[in-house]
């Protein structure tokens, strides 16, 4: 038996490692994605003041801190049984859409961008942000960097900090928006719409008009037939900030639709001894191991899953793009992992449109943004859609609001099993008869990126690639070959 270790891959809640096991014939029989990362947030949350959780939990992930901040803040609303004033909810949702927009844009242009915009087969020295700039032009590049900077600055002003925000409190937000901020938000939201349209155009021009790319997206190697989960509004349309959790089956039928309070009835976590990450799955279907299909409880989250789990988008341009995608890819659900990029662009449009709607809503000028909670806290559960997917926080406290128990289901986890499937599938299809296709690295990398904007969002701002090194061992366990990819 031989093993191949890819160590470390890029961060997955930290660092990752892939081990590929070959049989004596040199065929891959199994590939493991190991996540060697554990910090114990759920445990050390115990003893903390509940109201500190919106500031503690963002430290789980500094790339999508706003997702944790918002999930946590909403959990506190629930914990203290306080319904924030409408203006507060609108400001929160606006901030949240700005965050989704900024985060998705970063991913699209900077992470996935090199693969698609420059081209998957372009020389590695060009497959980076500089290559992207060359391709789209300096002006466009500045537009992208400028947009991101503006959006992040706006969120810093409203939320206090953009990395690890502070403004969320049970019952609302820390303070109303000043006139200047409201005006600034409106101005930026106009630009955001334009930016979203422009992004969609680039995607269509560069990706969809390239048959090779489309084939890549639909290729079997990147396809898993799993359940899909996402938040939907009362009309089953995608919503990032609030709604019910909807799950559709691999065949596209509604499997479940539930309030987050019922999450324990639907979701359970499986533990494997070879990785620190836990694998959530659909409890009622059950854990059947790393397989796909209707009988496997493995589900997927993130942009594509959200679109699959919903029946449409709540804003007009996004809805058009939504329909366009499904018609091109042959209807719902789409099982191709790489279609996440497409879905992400659709969500960019939605986020921009929703941002603009809220920015122009007169409510956000209101001073009424806080309700002081009066109830005695007990249990609270909250959910948002993080860029990477459904994010659930669940706290139990004593009467003073001190955490007694915390449970966190983060987006990466929901996708963990499907990512493991992808890795395994890629390895099995690409390592045969002792021949290790060098394309393995590419495949793995692309499969990753599709899911994992958060893990790697900073990745391609500098020249360089996903750092992978493969160790190939013979049957005696001796190292026979090393393949590096850089």
């Amino acid at each position, binding site marked *: *038996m031989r*093993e191949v270790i890819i160590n*470390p891959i890029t*961060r997955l809640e*930290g*660092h990752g490692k892939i*081990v590929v096991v070959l049989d004596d014939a040199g065929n891959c029989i199994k590939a*493991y994605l190991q996540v*060697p990362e*554990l*910090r*114990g947030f*759920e*445990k*050390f949350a115990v*003893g*903390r*003041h509940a*109201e*500190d959780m919106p500031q*503690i939990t*963002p*430290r789980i992930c*500094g*790339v999508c801190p706003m997702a944790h901040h918002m999930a946590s803040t909403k959990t*506190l609303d629930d914990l203290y049984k306080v319904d924030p004033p409408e203006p507060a909810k609108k400001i929160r949702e606006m901030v949240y859409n700005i965050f989704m927009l900024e985060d998705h844009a970063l991913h699209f242009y900077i992470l996935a961008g090199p693969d698609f915009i420059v081209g998957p087969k372009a020389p590695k020295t060009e497959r980076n942000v500089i290559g992207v700039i060359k391709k789209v032009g300096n002006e466009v590049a500045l537009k992208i*960097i400028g947009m*991101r*900077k503006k959006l992040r600055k706006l969120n810093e002003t409203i939320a*206090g*900090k953009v*990395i*690890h925000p*502070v*403004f969320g409190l049970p019952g609302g937000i*820390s303070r109303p928006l000043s006139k200047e901020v409201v005006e600034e938000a409106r101005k930026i939201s106009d630009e955001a719409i334009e930016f979203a349209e422009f992004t969609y155009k680039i995607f269509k021009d560069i990706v969809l008009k390239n048959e090779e790319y489309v084939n890549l997206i639909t290729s079997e190697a990147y396809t898993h037939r799993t359940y899909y989960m996402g938040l939907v509004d009362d009309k089953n349309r995608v919503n990032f900030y609030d709604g019910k959790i909807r799950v559709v089956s691999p065949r596209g039928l509604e499997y479940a639709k539930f309030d987050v309070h019922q999450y324990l009835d639907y*979701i*359970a976590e*499986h*533990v494997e*001894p*070879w*990785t*620190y990450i836990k694998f959530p799955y659909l*409890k009622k279907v059950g*854990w059947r191991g790393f397989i796909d299909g209707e009988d496997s409880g493995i589900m997927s989250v993130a942009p594509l899953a959200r679109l699959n789990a919903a029946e449409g988008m709540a804003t007009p341009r996004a809805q058009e793009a939504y329909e366009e995608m499904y018609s091109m890819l042959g209807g719902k659900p789409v099982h191709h992992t790489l279609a996440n990029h497409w879905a992400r662009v659709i969500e960019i449009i939605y986020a921009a449109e929703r941002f603009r709607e809220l920015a122009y809503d007169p409510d956000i000028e209101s001073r009424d943004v*806080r309700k*002081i909670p009066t109830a005695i806290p007990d249990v609270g559960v909250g959910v948002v859609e993080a860029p990477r997917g459904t994010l659930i926080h669940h706290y139990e406290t004593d009467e003073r*609001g001190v955490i007694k*128990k915390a*449970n966190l289901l983060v987006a990466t986890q929901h996708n963990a099993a499907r990512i493991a499937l992808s890795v395994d599938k890629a390895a099995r299809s690409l390592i045969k008869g002792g021949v290790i296709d060098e394309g393995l690295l590419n495949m793995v990398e692309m499969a990753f990126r599709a899911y994992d904007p958060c893990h*790697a969002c*900073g*990745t391609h*701002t*500098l020249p*360089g690639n996903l*750092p992978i*090194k493969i160790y190939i061992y013979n049957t005696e366990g001796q190292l026979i070959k090393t393949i*590096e990819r850089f």
Partner: protein
Amino acid sequence: MEKPKMALYWCASCGGCEEAVVDLAEKILDVINLVDIVFWPVAVDFKIDDVEKLPDGSIVASLINGGVRLSEHEHVVKLLRRKSKIVVAYGACSSWGGIPGLANLYDKEEILKYVYGDAPSVDNPGGVRPREKHVEEVELELPSFLPRLLPLDVVIDVDYYIPGCPPTPEVTWKALEILLSGNLPPKGSVLGASDRALCYECPLNNTKPDKILLKDIKRPHQVIVDPEKCLLTQELICLGPVTRGGCGALCIKAAMPCTGCFGSLDEVIDYGGKAVSYFASILDYYTEEDVERILDRLPDPMGVFYRYTLPASRLRGKIKTTMR
């Protein structure tokens, strides 16, 4: 001329520090022009072997973020220490442990038991736990989860510190300028941030009355504050007075009290101890009953006063940490 070599590494961090570097925005390109980044797992070629091949001391500066939580972190930071002239603890976690350092209030077993056993959504009837060595088809190894989280300077010698959770782009840029200037401050210095407490740059510092004596403590969710008035005087525990400045009072501008992510100032020996001492000294209480009552108003002093610094504090947490 060869550009100076620089490395960046993360331990038990959230990635916010990496994101903060990215937030240098256009300035990141200046950095690239000035230095040759030889190691940055999140961003550039990862070649730990290549790092090993470098002559000792050949990296001018390594910026390391995150606390040391896994055996793998320990291994890599020791390697970087050998290869680097200067090691910089970047951000709150590597400087003092940061928020993940609060895990030191619990021991390793308590954490594993909850995460893989008692958490409500876990379905693990067999009591499976991630193991350092596990034989499936082959032996799979996981780095070991250390008994506690260690600040970087407990594991290796650290030359400088850049504070913040995360350090702001301004602070990061200033610190890089100092590092690249060659005009280095004394070992142990904090780079890029202010030498004074946050109050100094706080827009509300001038709204304070002559004397601040507090009759009550309020937790942030219990009060709607006047955003134009010093939060401390509104009975919120603002750690601005005890926290190093440099962030520009971001939280306070959002009407939320400072929670201390820039850590303590040069002259302060223990951040949390100092925070408790300063805060207790302005409480206007005299009787034991008052003290009892006030302690009840603040059930989690650890999470409030030691939020970012527990592993580096004199208390060190429930789990003993051997200091250097």
